[in-house]
């Protein structure tokens, strides 16, 4: 990561001419964001959990031609998550012969891997505006180690129709992306809340017992992103990004989650 950052900084300095997006280009994208994740999973807890504002990093590769756009991206974050109502909680037994105490503060981690391919829909009268449609495959995992003092994990591997629109004028581009899961493999706690097995470890057992194939009727994972991009040179683009993800699932009981991220991005265009 440090090496890549150094290369990008070097390219900033050495960037020469200023240009527009050409018809065939590839780029590497690095984005640093602030993330907040909230969920209410009534199967696991009656409490709404939320993270602090966490640092999140994203690394991606984009390839764009006149008629198609392909991207692949890995995003991750770590931090803490606690009930919005209490934050970290302390327990101490008053008056017992053997005094005991306990602090519950949950660690949090999220990882997402996504790839999308879209085709340009049609030429609009406005040459600055374009519409794209295709599909996205996305793997998302959210983990907290102490929800009700017990590990919590929600994982989905989803295939989504994916829509993208781009408005470009001179050196400025504004991009909006939207996808919603159509078919997903969703992994959650079972009804019993414990992945008991005589043979498998808890992680394997969790996925074996808690994974279900779900259509959009049962599970929805909405992905929305809006990016502003400024073309600094024919090699470098800078921008700002906003992302919102919303998840909803009703098995075994309702869970809803919202993941928002805002941050800055830099694209290095390495092939025209």
């Amino acid at each position, binding site marked *: 990561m440090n090496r890549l950052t150094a290369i990008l900084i070097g390219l900033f300095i050495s960037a020469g001419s200023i240009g527009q997006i050409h018809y065939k280009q590839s780029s590497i994208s690095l984005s640093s964001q602030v993330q*907040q994740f*909230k*969920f*209410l999973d009534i199967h696991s*807890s*009656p*409490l*709404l959990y939320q993270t602090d504002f966490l640092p999140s990093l994203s690394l991606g590769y984009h390839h764009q031609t006149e008629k198609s756009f392909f991207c692949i991206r890995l995003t991750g974050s770590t931090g803490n998550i606690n*009930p*919005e*109502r*209490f934050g970290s*909680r*302390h*327990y*101490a*037994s*008053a*008056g*017992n*012969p053997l005094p*005991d*105490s*306990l602090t*519950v503060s949950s660690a949090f981690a999220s990882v997402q891997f996504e790839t999308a391919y879209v085709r340009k829909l049609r030429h609009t009268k*406005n040459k*600055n*505006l374009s519409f794209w449609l295709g599909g996205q495959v996305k793997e998302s995992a959210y983990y907290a180690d102490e929800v*009700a*003092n*017990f590990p919590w994990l929600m994982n989905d591997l989803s295939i989504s129709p994916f829509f993208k629109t781009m*408005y470009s*004028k001179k050196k400025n581009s*504004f991009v*909006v992306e939207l996808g919603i899961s159509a078919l997903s493999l969703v992994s959650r706690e*079972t*009804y*019993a*809340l*414990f992945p*008991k*097995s*005589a*043979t498998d*470890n808890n992680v394997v057992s969790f996925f074996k017992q808690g994974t279900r194939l779900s259509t959009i009727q049962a599970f929805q994972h909405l992905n*929305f992103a*809006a990016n502003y991009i400024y073309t600094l040179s024919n090699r470098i683009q800078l921008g700002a990004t*906003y992302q*919102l993800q*919303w998840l909803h699932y009703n098995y075994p009981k*309702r869970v*809803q*989650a*919202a993941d*928002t991220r805002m941050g800055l991005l830099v694209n290095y265009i390495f092939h025209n």
Partner: protein
Amino acid sequence: MKQTTYFFACVIAIFLLSSCTKQLVGKQVANSATENFDVLWKDYDAHYGTFITKNIDWQDAYNHFRPMVYDGMPDSSLFSVMKNLLDVLDDNHVFLKPLASTGLPWYKGGILGRVQVQDYNKDVAQSYLLQTFSYGDAIDYGILEGNIGYISLKKFDNDFNFYPAAMDAVLHTLLNTKGIIIDMRENDGGEDRVSQYIANRFAAERHFSFSSSLRNGPSHTDFAAPIKFYTEPAGSFQYTKPVIIINNLNVYSAGETFDLAMIQNKNVRLVGTVTGGALSDAVERELPNGWLYRVPIADVRDANGHNLEQTGISPSVYVDNTPADLQAGKDKMLEKAIELLN
């Protein structure tokens, strides 16, 4: 003009989405006395595993205690009503832990919440050992007079991968002893997969040892298919010479499933007292007021199909220590185990 409209529509959409993330996840349950009581009762209703075997009328308990709860009542009063509700279950796994800020004690259910077990003293037991070793935080072991091995299995809740190497090291040290005493009196459980694995290190044959059925629906009779555990040789080698297990009331949960697995081995006998009688898996939960509690979720049956909740596992040789014995430096339970191996 259209372009400007497009741009500003997107900006407005972003701000709208940013401001409503709390609404997107829904509204959490209010932190009132009535809501807290109802969440507690409903959660046990939906997940507790032994209503039927214990013949508990949970609805009747609700009807009795619910009228005592009112919004705005002091935490201490709510705690008292909840404690009385949970007493109906009479279950060692059940606890209720209020936040430290309430200044309230923790509640522990079952016989272990009512009785302080005083028939074991670690220092006294260890004074019989000629050599003492430890493996991590889960196992103490050593050699007793007469070339008898001693293992104190303190807990089964470390990661499973801890135990194969641990048992290799312990059993390798005790391999040439004429028998082993396994002291369970500090053991308050962990995972059944661990207890079964350790029992398998003493196995010569394959036998069905116990089953566990987890709740899978809202009715008290809703259970998934039983998960069956078998005692069978495991690990790089097995210790098949005579083994005596010492139990007391403190032994429960996976400590008891360990006993169920071990008694399938013909070389094993149980001495001491009856065990705690709480064999289910249990999960921690929380209330809208942040208090923690624990719900046992399974119906565990021994190899003969009997549920031993509240009953416990009886020894084949009953022996107990009095506080006076321990004060005099005598551990009669351990001495009986030594006598049986000699």
